[in-house]
């Protein structure tokens, strides 16, 4: 039971990471590798402000991640709009490495650590089963954020514009959708989602180094590809599947867990062979991908 809860918890965390990436991809067709550094900076902020109340620390981390996301959009991506996906991709690589090195200069190359929300590391028994508090809290946070995102995307004007822009940005602009404002909003929301991921990760692993957010970002990218790269639902679902499978493999493979990634990518290949455009893709999305 705990293994399933852990898998749901990790799946949810990956879903949040994938959703942040998917939002930006939707409006800019940009695979933003520097999303990893948004997760990292929020984890650093929470470690550095660990003496403050948890909520204040988290809000500060969200603010910093959102501002950094907007800054990267203003300073780099906005200037490169229209140059083509390859150049944008390379720029995001460059930005990712540049930010990692900046963190190294600011926070040092060695991990910075602090017990963020230590009460979450405990466990309790219920109906004869043992549960860790962090898994339950993570699942609760994930569900709350996914519901909030669902509301934002499905029920608000901003969400409608995000969905339209993800399908056809040119036509959305012809209808009056302000491109700079929409893209800025997508980056800010992706920063806030990254801070939620950073919080969940730093509770589990309080050792923050400059590459802290890299692993989950790469796997979340795999998630959005298998979920359906042009759909936010697909991105979240794909991220969840990757996290879920990885957690289950790590639990049940025992000493063979070193092969967990091999099995994960085997599963990914099989999914892509059956659904080349991703699980939730439609034919036109497949062509675009």
């Amino acid at each position, binding site marked *: 039971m705990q293994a399933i809860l852990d898998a749901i918890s990790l799946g949810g965390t990956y879903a949040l990471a994938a959703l942040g990436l998917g939002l930006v991809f939707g409006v800019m067709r940009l695979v933003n590798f520097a999303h990893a550094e948004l997760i990292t900076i929020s984890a650093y902020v929470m470690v550095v402000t660990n003496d403050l109340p948890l909520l204040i620390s988290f809000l500060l981390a969200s603010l910093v991640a959102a501002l950094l996301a907007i800054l990267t959009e203003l300073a780099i991506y906005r200037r490169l709009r229209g140059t083509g996906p390859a150049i944008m991709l390379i720029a995001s690589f460059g930005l990712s490495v540049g930010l990692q090195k900046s963190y190294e200069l600011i926070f040092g190359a060695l991990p910075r650590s602090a017990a963020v929300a230590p009460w979450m590391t405990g466990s309790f028994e219920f109906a004869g089963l043992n549960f860790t508090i962090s898994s339950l809290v993570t699942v609760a946070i994930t569900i709350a954020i996914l519901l909030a995102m669902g509301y934002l995307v499905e029920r608000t*004007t901003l969400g*409608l*514009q995000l*969905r*339209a822009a993800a*399908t*056809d940005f*040119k*036509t*959305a*602009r*012809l*209808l*009056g*959708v*302000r*491109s700079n404002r929409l893209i800025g909003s997508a980056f800010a929301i992706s920063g806030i989602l990254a801070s939620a991921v950073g919080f969940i990760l730093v509770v589990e692993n309080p050792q923050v180094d400059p590459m802290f957010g890299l692993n989950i970002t790469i796997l979340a990218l795999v998630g959005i590809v298998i979920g359906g790269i042009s759909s936010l639902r697909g991105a979240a679902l794909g991220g969840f599947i990757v996290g879920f499978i990885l957690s289950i493999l790590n639990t049940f493979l025992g000493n063979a867990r070193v092969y967990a990634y091999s099995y994960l990518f085997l599963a990914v290949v099989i999914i892509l062979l059956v659904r080349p455009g991703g699980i939730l893709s*439609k034919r*036109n999305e497949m062509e675009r991908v």
Partner: protein
Amino acid sequence: MAILEVKDLQAGYGKVDVLFGVSFSLEPGQSLGIVGPNGAGKSTLMKAIAGEVALKSGSVHLQGSPISGKKPEDVVRLGLSLVPEGRQIFGGLTVTENLMLGLTGRRDKASSKQALDQVRGLFPVLNTHAEYQAGMLSGGQQQQLAIARALVADPKVLLLDEPSLGLAPTVIMDVFSKLKEIIALGTSVVIVEQRAHLVTAFAEKTLIIRAGKVQATLTPEDAKDEVALRRAYFGAGA
């Protein structure tokens, strides 16, 4: 004063020029047709006016104010809407959601509901199919949705790029009869078409564009002379 005035417009893509000094003007409540063969630059002209393609030189004035160099999202707020070629409705969104998106470019948000009611009155199918996914509509219904979506922004000038594309002849006549109603309500309309006969008979004046230049201006009377129309469309050798 002309509601839309295009002067010596030159535009293209990168180093390739497509339009070479196109000029015309449109009076309030007037309809203008633009016809020409494939590659003549008709769609580029629409995109350049709507701000989708940057001008290399020349100017576009809407109600006397320059709109050249403005972004598409600003141009629609100033009162010029484009119904793009191929309709470009959002197939995954509902009919209502498509119309709501059209309201984004509307300046007077207080009267949004009246605008929605007005287009639903004009195109009743959008009322009966309000919660349908737009991609499930027929081609003619999608064209009506694309026009309605542009109309809810309350444009003074409505540009339509090939509204008859892919439609059956009877459906085309329906679409054009709706356009007559829209013009009667006071909106000026510019229609780009390959069907020269249809547009020349419909619009108060029609420009023939070939090789990025205006080659001739026709009136509905010219639609009756098939030979003259063909000669104007294809050039003197036709």
